[in-house]
């Protein structure tokens, strides 16, 4: 079941449209990547989900219910532009933010103690925020976001400002939260972390959604059936040798090794490719070339932008 559904969200500002009929469905207990170049409208969508701003058209459903003020307590939000009161004491501030999220003083205290202990921050309880390193401040922001056990967690660029050790600490926490039943929306430019964490993604460009789906499915749909092959003991051109079920995209000699990229045509299998290659030399390695999310992202955004530009130049 989908925990969060956005239907046809449109948001206009005075001189531009930030979101244009965007719909996304976030399955329960998944990590959902919200991707897109700067200015695509991700933050606007996140703010609408957080009820910071209202959509001009469309609606958001949480658990099948129309988004309502009471839902705030089941959402946790870590904004991209985030900070804390510099002059305020760490513990006091965490308590304040937790109470604003609807926790009682007692509950907030108990949970904070647990998380502060877990992140080794207890000794900093009475220090001012300005005395903390940026990484520690980020940890506190993370704690405040997840403290009230929200069903839906929204992280906007959660790893910016973290060193690799803390980033992996946070990554593990995010996975653990998902396993414990939380649904996570995760907005980032960092494609490596998308591949590592996300189950689903939606790609937004120029205020429109241009791609959505399960990461594995998207990746396989972008597969081009190209395989990288390494053969030794062969000193002719593969291009002239193979029949037209196989297309040689590229081949190079390197230290007596022929490296070739071969595209399989006519629905032939990899075994048939191996059989076709076997007579000519020794097969060292063979690997399917799978596009990374980064490649898909760039390809999709570029083609969309091109499309957008031609369209708009036609209408002009």
């Amino acid at each position, binding site marked *: 079941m989908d925990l969060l559904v956005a239907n046809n969200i449109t948001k206009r500002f005075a001189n531009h449209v930030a979101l244009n009929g965007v719909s996304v469905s976030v399955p329960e207990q998944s990590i959902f990547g919200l991707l897109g170049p700067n200015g695509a409208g991700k933050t606007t969508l996140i703010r609408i989900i957080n009820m910071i701003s209202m959509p001009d058209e469309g609606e958001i459903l949480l658990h099948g219910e129309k988004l309502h003020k009471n839902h705030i307590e089941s959402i946790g939000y870590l*904004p991209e532009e985030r900070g804390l*009161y510099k002059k305020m004491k760490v513990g006091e501030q965490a308590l304040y933010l937790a109470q604003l999220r*609807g926790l009682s003083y007692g509950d907030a205290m108990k949970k904070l103690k647990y998380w502060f202990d877990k992140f080794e921050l207890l000794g900093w309880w009475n220090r001012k925020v300005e005395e903390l390193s940026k990484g520690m401040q980020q940890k506190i922001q993370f704690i405040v976001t997840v403290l009230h056990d929200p069903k839906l967690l929204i992280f906007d660029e959660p790893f910016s400002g973290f060193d690799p050790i803390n980033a992996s600490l946070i990554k593990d926490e995010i996975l653990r939260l998902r396993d414990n039943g939380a649904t996570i929306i995760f907005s980032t430019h960092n494609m490596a972390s998308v591949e590592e964490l996300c189950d689903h993604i939606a790609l937004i460009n120029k205020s429109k959604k241009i791609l959505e789906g399960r990461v594995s499915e998207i990746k396989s749909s972008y597969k081009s059936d190209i395989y990288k092959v390494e053969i030794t003991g062969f000193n002719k051109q593969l291009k002239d040798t193979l029949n037209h079920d196989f297309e040689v995209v590229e081949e190079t000699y390197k230290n007596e090794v022929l490296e070739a990229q071969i595209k399989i045509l006519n629905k032939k299998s990899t075994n048939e490719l191996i059989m076709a290659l076997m007579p000519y030399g020794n097969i060292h390695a063979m690997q399917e070339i799978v596009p990374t999310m980064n490649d898909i992202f760039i390809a999709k955004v570029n083609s969309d932008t091109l499309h957008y530009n031609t369209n708009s130049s036609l209408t002009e």
Partner: protein
Amino acid sequence: MKKTLIIIKREYLSRVKKRSFIVMTILGPLLMAALMIVPYYITKLDKEQKIINVLDETGIYNKLGSNETIKFNYIYTDIETAIANFDQSNTSALLYIPKPSLTEPTNAILYFADKQPGNTVTSYIQDKMKYIYENKKLMELYGIDKKQIDEAKVRITINSENIKTGEKNLPLATTLIGIFAGFLIYFSIFMYGNQVMRGVIEEKTSRIVEIIVSSVKPFQLLLGKIVGIALVGLTQFLLWIVLTLSIVTVFQMTIGHKNIVKTEQTQITKQSNTLFPENPDMKKGQDSDNEMIQSLLNSIGNYNYTLIIASFFFFFLFGYLLYAALFAAIGSAVDNEADTQQFMLPITIPLILAFILAQPIIENPQGPIAFWFSIIPLTSPIVMMIRLPFGVPVYELILSMGLLVFGFIFCTWLAAKIYRTGILMYGKKISYRELWKWLRY
């Protein structure tokens, strides 16, 4: 509502716990108490009696008359010996009145050693000598005796009185009360309004605002901040009053006087009484200053304090609320304090204008300037407080208060529109045109 209370609590506590608040709270009453206590000490110090030797060669000024502060001691010797003996004489000054051969005996020299005698001493001696010599001349030349002179002296007093209530009014006291109340409101609007603005900028630049507005509505945050700081202001006023009163009370108890103000007042009266013990007419002519202070002090009891104080709190509160919302809107539109300048003008102009207009308003408290500016919400908190001690028709007061409340609601509504857009807008230089756009979102 509960969350707004949590915000109010934080805004209030974080400011009240600040060192600057504590320092201000302690320094204020100390200053006020000093203002009340120091004059008392000054008059007390002055009470020490000075002894002045008088060498009168003319023989006319033999009745200079000592009082509590000055004791005249007549010596009969020549000036050289008197000067030579000055150091041993244990006196603070030597008054030498030589006998001129040609001119009238109206000149004297006051010799002193370490401490220069004050203006009061010189002018006291001058007045005395003038009085003695004038009387002598009138008597000798025109045959008018002392009794006739005394009878001829008159003194004119003008008291203004409200024709309906019979309330006695002294323009000076009225002006002082009005200006003081008006200034206090002017000053506090700027001070606490600025705190609101700085608070909003702090939240915006530290980027905590986005975390907060995902929990509460921007309007709740705005309201919590404004109300929290209003409470800080009220706390400060209250502490100032309580601390000032207790410092003064403790002082009175240790010194053993019932009432400093009263002491000062009687002191002045006593001084002028003893100044001319044997010449009551002279006293009458001399103590017009004293009488003015006296009637000023008396007239302080003539005002409707309940009305003035209640109005003060009303105009302070709503004037502050109106401006605080505008200050918050400015804070939300900029990225740092330096950028606030361009937007401050529309706020500072009405406030400063209200203060500049104090002069014409005092001169004509019922005139059109006074009327209009005490009705318009942006200037009314200050102007109405200046006008109030002069007496304002009830319907004008109610109209002014009503419009102020309306103005406050309107300004807050307007400010909230700018605020909710502004706080989430980073790194963009905002123009008035942009603000106009936000208002129409």
